[in-house]
């Protein structure tokens, strides 16, 4: 058997998910729609790990359309990893019926913390060249089967528990105001673009001379290299705690400046209300976080402010004020 691998996935900061079904008759799953990866996987009924015990599991023997491939799959995510197999079955996404879709079935999920997440698996919406072992992603199959009006999808994320949507095959103007700015994808794997700079209080404080950014629905934060994140936090008055989270006084949020992302010469401001979170037990927490690399990750914090269109036909991303 072949062993396929998939990029490391982080589950600590995923917060939007929706429902799909797999098989005949359908077995229901809650998955994160993740533009930062390209495979679909859900737990298998054969999984005996603690993390699988309180999640929906797929039972191949209960599906008349399931086909085994004999292929193994290994996926690491965040604090643990998953090992499993690749199968093929009918995947239903809203009213779209995707036949003969290859997907991962996890047999072991040893990560002790995954037990706490509400979603069962992940449905990747990235480009096919990120997918494990050449597996065609769900979105590509929907396009190949001529199920979509246009070769694109768009995402609106609400601050509320409900109201968020993924729109397959089109754009809904009721979710944004003003015009759409289109940005070329700089690398057709992730939804990656070139960013000009980051401005706070009229000063260019990070990404000077340009940098690369990824629009990722599967990361809740805005993340970037420590030098840039530290500068932003200095500018907005946030302090780092022992564990790397940045805190600020909740009463000062109204006085904190916008952080402006400049992309293709267009300014995309994100307000302090959008880039901070308040929990019941303590101070307000910044939604900016350090990464080890020099990439910027524009996650849900950014997408909540800017309705995002992922245009595979033209390899571009559209942004409009949500």
């Amino acid at each position, binding site marked *: 058997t072949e062993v396929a691998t998939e*990029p*490391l*996935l*982080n*589950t*600590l*900061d*995923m*917060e939007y*998910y*929706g429902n799909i079904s797999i098989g005949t008759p359908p077995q229901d799953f809650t998955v994160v*729609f993740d533009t*930062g*990866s390209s495979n679909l996987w859900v737990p298998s009924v054969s999984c005996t790990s603690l993390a699988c015990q309180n999640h929906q599991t797929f039972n191949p023997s209960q599906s008349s359309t399931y086909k085994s491939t004999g292929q193994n799959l290994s996926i690491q995510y*965040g*604090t643990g990893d998953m090992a499993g197999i690749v199968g093929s079955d009918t995947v239903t*996404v809203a*009213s779209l019926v995707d036949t003969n879709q290859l997907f991962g079935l996890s047999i072991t999920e040893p990560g002790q*913390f*995954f037990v*706490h*997440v509400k979603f069962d698996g992940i449905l990747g919406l990235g480009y096919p060249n990120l997918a494990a072992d050449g597996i065609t992603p769900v979105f590509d199959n929907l396009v190949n089967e001529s*199920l*979509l*009006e246009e070769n694109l999808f768009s995402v609106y*994320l*609400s*601050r*509320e*528990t*409900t*109201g*968020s*949507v*993924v*729109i*397959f*095959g089109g754009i*809904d103007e009721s979710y944004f105001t003003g015009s759409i700015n289109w940005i070329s994808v*700089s690398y057709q*794997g*992730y939804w*990656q673009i070139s960013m000009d700079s980051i401005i706070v209080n009229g000063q260019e404080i990070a990404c000077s001379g*340009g*940098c*690369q950014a*990824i629009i*990722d629905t*599967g*990361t809740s934060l805005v993340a970037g290299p420590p030098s840039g994140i530290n500068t932003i936090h200095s500018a907005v008055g946030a302090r780092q705690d022992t*564990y790397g989270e940045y805190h600020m006084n909740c009463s000062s949020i109204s006085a904190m400046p916008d952080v402006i992302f400049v992309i293709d010469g267009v300014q995309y401001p994100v307000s302090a209300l959008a880039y901070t979170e308040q*929990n019941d*037990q303590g101070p307000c927490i910044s939604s900016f*976080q350090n*990464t*080890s*690399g*020099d*990439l910027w*990750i524009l996650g849900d914090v950014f997408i909540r402010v800017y309705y995002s269109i992922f245009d595979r036909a033209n390899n571009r991303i559209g942004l409009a004020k949500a």
Partner: protein
Amino acid sequence: GVTKLPLERGKKLREVLREKGLLHRFFQHHRYDIATKFPHAFSDR
């Protein structure tokens, strides 16, 4: 040809662990780095 799929905004694992008092333990035992999710991205530098 246009299909809408509703999404729910749930609690992040980060918040669940914070509420259970497990977040500090998580950071003590795991080096968390979002960049590890994107090993195939290219950078300018």
